[in-house]
Structure formats: structure tokens, C-alpha cells
């Protein structure tokens, strides 16, 4: 009789928020199943019949888990919103710091005034937003569709198209760079899943090279394309560390969610 297997299946499928709650529900269900098994056993059933009767009386794991999922759906949603808000905020701050740092290095190298960055601040804002959105959407894709790469890229592709339309409308002459930055961050994240070290560097480089080939120099200062690439690559590295940190902080949700990307 595999009572623990029934309990584990329910707990896994129910996606209950919090380790303590999961442990408590598991213990509660296990106690019930033990009582039920004792009752059936006392009626003289053999092991095979016992297993069948207990399963029949207790119900399908999927049905019970589904009912638990509905009960705790608001808590799970609140937690997901909180985690997403923390992730997006931390990511944006990290990208601001990295891109700001790279801009500063560029200003020092070219002996230009740092203040000159402020003249094109709207472009910087679009660029920073695009990098954050590209990385976060790729990560969200991994979490939502952990087993299919084709589906995992859907959030990034959808968001990319929307941003393309938005940037094309708001800043038509400067739309190419933030879109290239978006693609760099998204493909950088996707390639970070590859086990071979540094392969993801190509993820941040290839979309930039394509953009350069298609549109030529996109901004003044494009004579330092490696600096743009460096900014995007360091941003992706910083964002990867943020993802790792958050996954450690919210480890209880990641352990049970079956959401580890497997493609």
C-alpha cells in the first residue's frame, strides 16, 4: 500500500503555497489514509483489494488536488504577483546600474561629458526597459512552459511584437536599438540555459550584429559596438544572478512547481 505516493501526488499537483502548509496538509491526508487502510484491513481484505478500496473511497488525486488548488488560488496569485514585482524591480535597478556604468566608461574613454547622456535619456529609458522586458519575458516563458522551447519563446515573441509597434509609434527613428536590446536580452537568457560556458555571449551578440547589418549604425557612439554588447552582456549576467537569488529565496515554490526548464 503506497499511501505516501497518493499523498505526494496530491501535494505535487495542488501547488499549495508555503512549505509549512504543504507539510501540514500532507500529514493530515496521510493520517486519514492510515485510518482508512486500518478500517479496510480490519474487514479482512487482502493487500490488492485494500489498495483498490482505499483509492476508490479516498478519490482521485487529481480531483482532490484540483479542489485544493482552487481553495488556495488567491494566495498563490498574490505570491506570484509579489515575486514578479520583486523580480522586475530588482532587474530594472540592475540594468540601470550596469548600463549607467557602461555609459560612464564610454564617456570617460571618449572624453565626453557625462551630462551628454541626459540629452538622449528617453532612448536610455527605452533601452533599459527593453533589456529588462526581454530578459524577464524569456524567464517567464521558461517558467510557464518548462518543457517546450517553442512555447517558452512565445511570451518574448509576443511582447517583442507589441514593443516593436509601440516603439515604432513613439520613437520611430530610434526604434531599432531598443528592439535589438530586447532581442539580445531574450536570446541571452535562452542561451544561458545551455550548459556550455559562455555560449550565451552569442545570444547577446547575434541580434546586435543582425541589427547592425540591417540598419547600419543605430546611435552615435555606435563606433563602440563592443561597449553596447558589453553593457547587454553584463546586464544579462546581473539578471541571471538576480534570478538565482530569487530562486533561492523562494526555493519552496520552485521545488514543488515542476517548473524547472527541461528543454
Amino acid at each position: 500500500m503506497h499511501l505516501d505516493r497518493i499523498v505526494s501526488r496530491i501535494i505535487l499537483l495542488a501547488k499549495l503555497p508555503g512549505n509549512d502548509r504543504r507539510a501540514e496538509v500532507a500529514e493530515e491526508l496521510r493520517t486519514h489514509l492510515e485510518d482508512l487502510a486500518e478500517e479496510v484491513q480490519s474487514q479482512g481484505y487482502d493487500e490488492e483489494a485494500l489498495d483498490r478500496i482505499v483509492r476508490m473511497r479516498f478519490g482521485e488525486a487529481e480531483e482532490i488536488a484540483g479542489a485544493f488548488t482552487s481553495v488556495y488560488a488567491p494566495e498563490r496569485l498574490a505570491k506570484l504577483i509579489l515575486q514578479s514585482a520583486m523580480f522586475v524591480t530588482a532587474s530594472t535597478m540592475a540594468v540601470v546600474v550596469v548600463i549607467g556604468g557602461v555609459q560612464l566608461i564610454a564617456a570617460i574613454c571618449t572624453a565626453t561629458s557625462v551630462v551628454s547622456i541626459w540629452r538622449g535619456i528617453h532612448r536610455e529609458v527605452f533601452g533599459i526597459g527593453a533589456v529588462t522586458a526581454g530578459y524577464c519575458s524569456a524567464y517567464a516563458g521558461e517558467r510557464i512552459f518548462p518543457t517546450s522551447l517553442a512555447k517558452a519563446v512565445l511570451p518574448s515573441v509576443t511582447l517583442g511584437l507589441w514593443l516593436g509597434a509601440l516603439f515604432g509609434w513613439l520613437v520611430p527613428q530610434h526604434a531599432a536599438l531598443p528592439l535589438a536590446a530586447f532581442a539580445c536580452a531574450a536570446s541571452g537568457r535562452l542561451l544561458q540555459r545551455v550548459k556550455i560556458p559562455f555560449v550565451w555571449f552569442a545570444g547577446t551578440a547575434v541580434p546586435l550584429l543582425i541589427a547592425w547589418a540591417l540598419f547600419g549604425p543605430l546611435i552615435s557612439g555606435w563606433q563602440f559596438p563592443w561597449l553596447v554588447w558589453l553593457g547587454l552582456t553584463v546586464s544579462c549576467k546581473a539578471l541571471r544572478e538576480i534570478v538565482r537569488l530569487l530562486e533561492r529565496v523562494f526555493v519552496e515554490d520552485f521545488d514543488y512547481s515542476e517548473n524547472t526548464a527541461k528543454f
Partner: protein
Amino acid sequence: MPFDRELLKGSIALLILKLLSERDMYGYEIIQESLRRSQDAFEFKEGTLYPALHQLHKRGYLHSEWRTGNNGKQRKYYGLTAAGRKAARRSEQEWLSFTKVVKAILSKAKA
């Protein structure tokens, strides 16, 4: 006569509240008690009791605590809160009115 599943599902909260208004019980005990009182007619998938208990607990109708039984086994007991007692009375009244109306309709249909 086995009852319709949806009908059982709809009345499970009332059943839990009513049984717990008499004394604190754990899940298995609630099932046993409902089977005994209904002479085994009120039969539903036992595992589905727990999401219902947790839902009522979340609404503030139940309190719960782990207690050790006579055989040394730890069990989670549920009892009614003040809000739960109110809800039990309200649900019972609602159910009685509902069955009265259904009965009236059925008897007229027969006549």
C-alpha cells in the same frame, strides 16, 4: 439510493458545519459520523472533504489544532468559531427553506 455527486458537493459545507456544531472532530471522524447518521447513504470521495474543510477554515468558520488521540496518533481537529456557528445556523435555515420549497413544488406536481 446513491445521491447525485453535485448535490452532495453542494451540501458538504452544511454537513461539516452541522457536525462540528456538536463537537470538535477530525476529518476521518466527520466521514464516519456522516456515514453513520445517513446509514451509509451519504457517501462521497473522502479526500474531497479536506479542501472543503480548508475553505471553511479560510473563511474563518473553523479553528483547528493538532491533538493526540487515545492511540497516541496525532490528528488535526476542527471546531466551529463564532462566525462558523452563525454560518451553521444560517445554512441550516437556508437548507430547510430550500427543501420545503422543493417539496412543495414536487407535491404540487404530483397532484
